[in-house]
Each structure stands twice: as structure tokens, then as C-alpha cells.
């Protein structure tokens, strides 16, 4: 009985995510077309769209990852359906409020809502408090979900076991599945950055309701903003990786991956580095002491090392000269890992302080994070969605059709991203609704990006139709 409930709620999550994904891609394409001069939106419309595009994308791929690990966690521990449901309800309320705030209220602070921009009201008066309330609702909903899942894991595993510390010794008695280890590491990161969001919101509310008598420190607020924003954007990738650790071998018809000492070590280190890497967002704020800047660069480098040496290498080991049953699911995973690595190169280059001075807030920034989302995390989650949807139906996507889907995803994604990277190297600023005339290549690149994003949208729509249809069937089936 219980397993049907989780199946249904996971279906709702998937349908919600995919619907919002398609809508946000369309907003993104409209933004690129506006930058390319094909469309003429007012700057306010452009920036409102940009704000909701960013918030929605971060939000949906985070919940997609959470819903994914929640579903798979049922294999090891009993999870709380109530917490899942509360998170779903609060997410829907929060997202609806945010769409109202930006599209009706014309709130346009970008998704980073850098202090004190939300308090300098240039939109409907109700939009600022509603935005803060919506963000608080989302934070609280996700906190409940994260803490509940953490509690369920801790019911079965002790802290040491959940972090796989016993694997540092030879032949441990209790074996921690990699999925539990990675979920736990990620949940701790997620809960931390959601607490940061709560602190940030509290400071905003304090200033908003103090009527000018309490003023926040801009540096503290910027640190908090990126502690929250950077970390949640990073953790959602790790949620996707947890799914890969669980499913990659299984889908290919291979024995399950095991936790070893180096897997345990790498992920424990990742937890530490990922919580300090956000300092790289403040490289150009000379007010931040140099020590923190250098910690930012080192942590950004070190965060990528265990991931590369363990996760990427494990994927290679699992594939190299091994007979694998390739399906759409594990191909999406495999291509996603490649996209994640390439985006990682762009990220490490940008996380180098002496490069950052000529790349910071140019198109290089959206270039690299779109790479490991569009060609990485999204593919991880789509792989999971597809795998989930075919569990309970028998009709699969034919191999030839899979090839078409993947080719379109790669061609569309590559062209879309290339326009960003070249724009970044051409010093074209990010977050400009219209480009100054002196950036001669900017308009062409924007339209080029929009065209390829449209190609990317085609396979997404196919998958949307395909997966949603099956999920709806699961949702409305009465038995099994």
C-alpha cells in the first residue's frame, strides 16, 4: 500500500518538474532572442523572466534530485510519506507565489536577490514581502523533507556508519551502501544551506520590518546569499550522483557498486570542500580578506578532485571493456557525467582568482553552470525519470528513437553552450537585457544560442510527453 503512495507522489513530482522545466526553457529562449534583437521586451520584462527562470531551474532540479533519492531510499529505509507530501505542497505554494511575484508583481532582482536589491522597491509593493515569504516557505518545506530523510537513515545507521567511517578499516562488519553514504553527505550539505537561507531571510525580515532603524552589513549578506545559492546549486548535482551510484550498474545489468575506503574518504572530504567553495563568488569583493579568497580557490579545486578521481573514474571502470546493456537511462547518465566533467573544467578555470578578474560576471559564468546543468544534472534526473516511468509499463522507447533523442540533446546543448563560452571569452557581460553596440558578436551569439536551445527543447518535449503520459497512468491507476 505504502509503495503505491510513494510511486504516486514521485509521479506528481516528475510531472511538476517537467512542466516547469519546459516553461522555463521557453523563458530562457525568449531571453536569448531578446538579447539577439529578434524580440523587443522591456528590460523589466526581461529581468523578471530572468529572475523566475533562475529560481525555477534551481528549485525544480533540486526537488527532482530530492524526489529521486527519496524514491530510491525506500529500498534501504522506510521514508516519511508525510514529509514528502508537506514538501510537495509547500513547493507548489512557494513556486506559485514566486511566479506571481515575478510575472504579475514584476519583481526582478535576479535569482541571487543580492542584498539590498530586494529592499529597493522598483516593482509592486507587495512583491518584496511576498518574495521573502515564498522563499521562506520553500526553505522550511525542504528543511522538513531533508531532516526527515536524515532521521530515517539515522534510524538504521549510526552517524559513523551513515558517513561510512567504518570503511576506513579493513573488512568492516556493517557495509554502508554508496547510495546511503552520498545521500547522507548531500543531505547534511542541503540542510546546512537551508539553515543559511533561514538566517538570510530572518535578516531580510528584520530590516524590512524595522523601518530603517536596522541595516544589514552588505558583506555578510553577500556571503550568506552565496553560501545558500552556490551550495544548493552544487548539492543538487550530488543528489543526481547518488541516483547514478544506485542505478548505473543495475540498469546496465552489472553487479551493484560497493563502498570502499577511497569512496568513503572522497565523499567525506567533498562535504567539507563544498561548504567553503562558495567564497569564489566574492573574489572581486576586495573587502573579503585574502585568506578567505585563497581558501575559496583551494576549496573549489579540492572539491573537484575526489569527485573526479572517484565518481568519474568509477563510471569509466564500470564501462571500459565491460559488456553493458545500454538503454536510454544509462546513456543519459553516461553523457551527463561527461557534461559534468566539461562544465567542471569551465568552473575550475573560473574559480581561479587571476582568471576570475577577466571572467567574473561575463557570459563565462552562465556558460559553465549551464554546462553541468543542461548537459549534466538534467540528464541525471531525466535518466531517473525515464527509468522510473518504465518500471510500471512495458512499452519502451525504441533504440532508434533513443538515439535521435540523445543526438538532438547533444547537438542542441553543445551549440547553446558554445555561444555562452565564446561570449564569455569575448568579455560580453551576463545579465544584460540588451547589448551595447560595441559588442559586435553579442547579438549573433545570442540568436545562435537561442536556435540551438530550441533544438535542445525538441527532445525535452518528446521526453516530457513520453514520461508524463506514463506518470499520469501510474498516478491514476487504482491498484498494483
Amino acid at each position: 500500500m505504502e509503495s503505491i503512495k510513494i510511486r504516486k507522489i514521485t509521479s506528481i513530482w516528475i510531472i511538476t518538474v517537467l512542466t516547469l522545466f519546459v516553461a522555463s526553457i521557453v523563458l530562457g529562449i525568449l531571453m536569448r532572442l531578446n538579447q539577439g534583437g529578434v524580440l523587443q521586451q522591456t528590460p523589466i520584462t526581461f529581468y523578471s523572466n530572468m529572475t523566475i527562470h533562475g529560481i525555477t531551474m534551481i528549485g525544480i532540479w533540486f526537488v527532482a534530485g530530492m524526489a529521486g533519492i527519496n524514491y530510491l531510499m525506500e529500498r534501504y529505509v522506510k521514508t516519511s510519506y508525510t514529509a514528502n507530501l508537506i514538501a510537495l505542497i509547500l513547493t507548489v505554494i512557494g513556486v506559485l507565489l514566486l511566479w506571481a511575484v515575478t510575472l504579475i508583481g514584476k519583481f526582478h532582482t535576479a535569482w541571487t536577490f543580492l542584498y539590498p536589491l530586494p529592499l529597493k522597491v522598483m516593482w509592486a509593493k507587495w512583491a518584496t514581502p511576498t518574495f521573502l515569504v515564498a522563499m521562506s516557505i520553500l526553505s522550511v518545506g525542504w528543511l522538513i523533507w531533508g531532516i526527515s530523510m536524515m532521521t530515517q537513515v539515522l534510524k538504521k545507521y549510526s552517524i559513523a556508519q551513515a558517513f561510512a567511517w567504518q570503511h576506513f578499516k579493513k573488512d568492516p562488519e556493517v557495509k554502508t551502501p554508496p547510495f546511503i553514504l552520498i545521500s547522507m553527505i548531500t543531505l547534511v550539505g542541503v540542510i546546512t544551506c537551508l539553515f543559511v537561507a533561514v538566517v538570510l531571510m530572518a535578516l531580510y525580515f528584520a530590516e524590512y520590518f524595522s523601518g530603517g532603524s536596522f541595516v544589514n552589513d552588505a558583506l555578510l549578506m553577500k556571503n550568506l546569499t552565496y553560501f545558500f545559492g552556490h551550495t544548493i546549486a552544487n548539492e543538487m548535482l550530488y543528489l543526481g550522483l547518488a541516483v547514478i551510484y544506485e542505478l548505473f550498474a543495475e540498469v546496465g545489468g552489472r553487479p551493484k557498486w560497493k563502498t570502499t575506503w577511497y569512496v568513503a574518504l572522497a565523499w567525506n572530504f567533498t562535504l567539507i570542500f563544498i561548504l567553503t567553495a562558495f567564497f569564489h563568488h566574492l573574489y572581486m569583493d576586495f573587502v573579503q580578506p585574502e585568506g578567505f579568497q585563497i581558501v575559496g580557490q583551494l576549496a573549489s579545486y579540492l572539491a573537484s578532485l575526489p569527485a573526479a578521481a572517484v565518481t568519474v573514474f568509477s563510471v569509466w571502470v564500470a564501462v571500459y571493456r565491460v559488456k553493458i546493456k545500454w538503454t536510454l537511462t544509462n546513456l543519459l547518465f553516461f553523457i551527463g557525467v561527461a557534461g559534468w566533467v566539461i562544465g567542471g573544467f569551465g568552473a575550475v578555470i573560473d574559480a581561479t582568482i587571476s582568471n576570475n578578474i577577466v571572467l567574473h560576471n561575463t557570459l563565462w559564468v552562465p556558460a559553465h553552470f549551464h554546462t553541468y546543468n543542461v548537459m549534466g544534472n538534467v540528464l541525471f534526473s531525466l535518466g531517473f525519470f525515464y527509468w522510473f516511468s518504465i518500471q510500471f509499463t512495458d512499452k519502451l522507447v525504441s533504440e532508434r528513437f533513443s538515439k535521435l533523442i540523445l543526438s538532438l540533446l547533444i547537438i542542441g546543448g553543445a551549440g547553446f553552450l558554445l555561444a555562452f563560452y565564446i561570449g564569455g571569452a569575448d568579455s560580453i557581460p551576463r545579465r544584460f537585457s540588451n547589448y551595447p553596440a560595441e559588442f559586435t558578436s553579442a547579438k549573433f551569439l545570442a540568436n545562435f544560442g537561442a536556435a540551438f536551445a530550441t533544438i535542445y527543447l525538441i527532445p525535452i518535449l518528446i521526453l516530457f510527453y513520453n514520461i508524463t503520459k506514463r506518470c499520469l497512468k501510474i498516478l491514476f491507476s487504482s491498484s498494483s
Partner: protein
Amino acid sequence: MQQSSILLLFFFLMGIALIVFTYVYLSSKKADQGMTNPLKKRFWFFLILTVMMGIFASVTIPKSPYFAFADKTPAKVIHVAAMQFSFFLSENAIDPEKPSGQQIELPVDEVVEFRVTSLDVNHGFAIYDESNRLITQTQAMPGYVNRLRYQFDEPGKYNILCLEYCGMAHQVMRSSFTVK
């Protein structure tokens, strides 16, 4: 040009990644026993990555802008106050109550110092040369002053753009100065 070499480096790394992933994928078509001794190979992979990153970090960190021209006495100091949606540049300190700016001319081949702050929200202060290359930048943060030192080697007109999103006219927030 720093940006061109960055792009080149990125394409080079991307190429390597694509070759490795394609090679690994194709190898699964003619499968046999899998990778021999993966732990040993993993160790070497990790070691090479660590050494490369270590070298990269130790080369780049000393080039960080916080240490640039720290031991020099600048020839000129320019005060910069950023405000939605304009910049005030002045050789004198700028009164936050009545900000005003002036035309700025800077000497070539000499160190100059920009003291950058903001009077409202966070802004960026990015300097573009005549060929529209971003050459240096800092952030303008309310309540704080960032000191950016730079030596212009080429005379000409330099543009300043705001590179931190600051609201609806962010894209037209700009200024300029000349170097002679």
C-alpha cells in the same frame, strides 16, 4: 590576451574529456574482462590530477589582484561612487549626500588607484579597453571601499560597465575615461 588562452585551454581540456569518454564508451562494444587493476590506475589518475592542480594553484594564486602593485605609490587616485544607474568618477572624494563627478584623464604607464564604493546596491566596476576586452574589475559594495590598482600601458578611451546586476537599467549603466 588572457581570455583567448583561457578559451583555448578550455577547448583543449574539453577535447581530452570527449576523447576519453568516447573511447571508453566504444570499448564497451568489444567487451572482455574490463579494466585490469583499476585501483592502481585510479591512484595514478588521482596523483596526476593532484599534481596538475597543485601546480596550477601555486602559479595562479600569487597573480591574484589583491597583491597587484601593493608596494607602489600610485600616481593618481580616482574616487568612484556607483549608484543606480550611473558612475561618479572624481579626483576628489565624493560626498554621498551630493555626489558629483568629472571627466577623468589618467597617465599612461603609471600606477593609478580606483577607490570604489556604492551609494545604494551592489554594483560592478569593470574596465574595458578600446577593443572591448575586459581588463580588470572590482565590485562596488555599499559601506565599503575597494581599492583597485592598475597600470594602463596603452593610451586611449576606456569604458566602464557595471558587471553586477543592479536593476532594470543595469545594461546602460556605464562611464568612461581617457588615458594619455
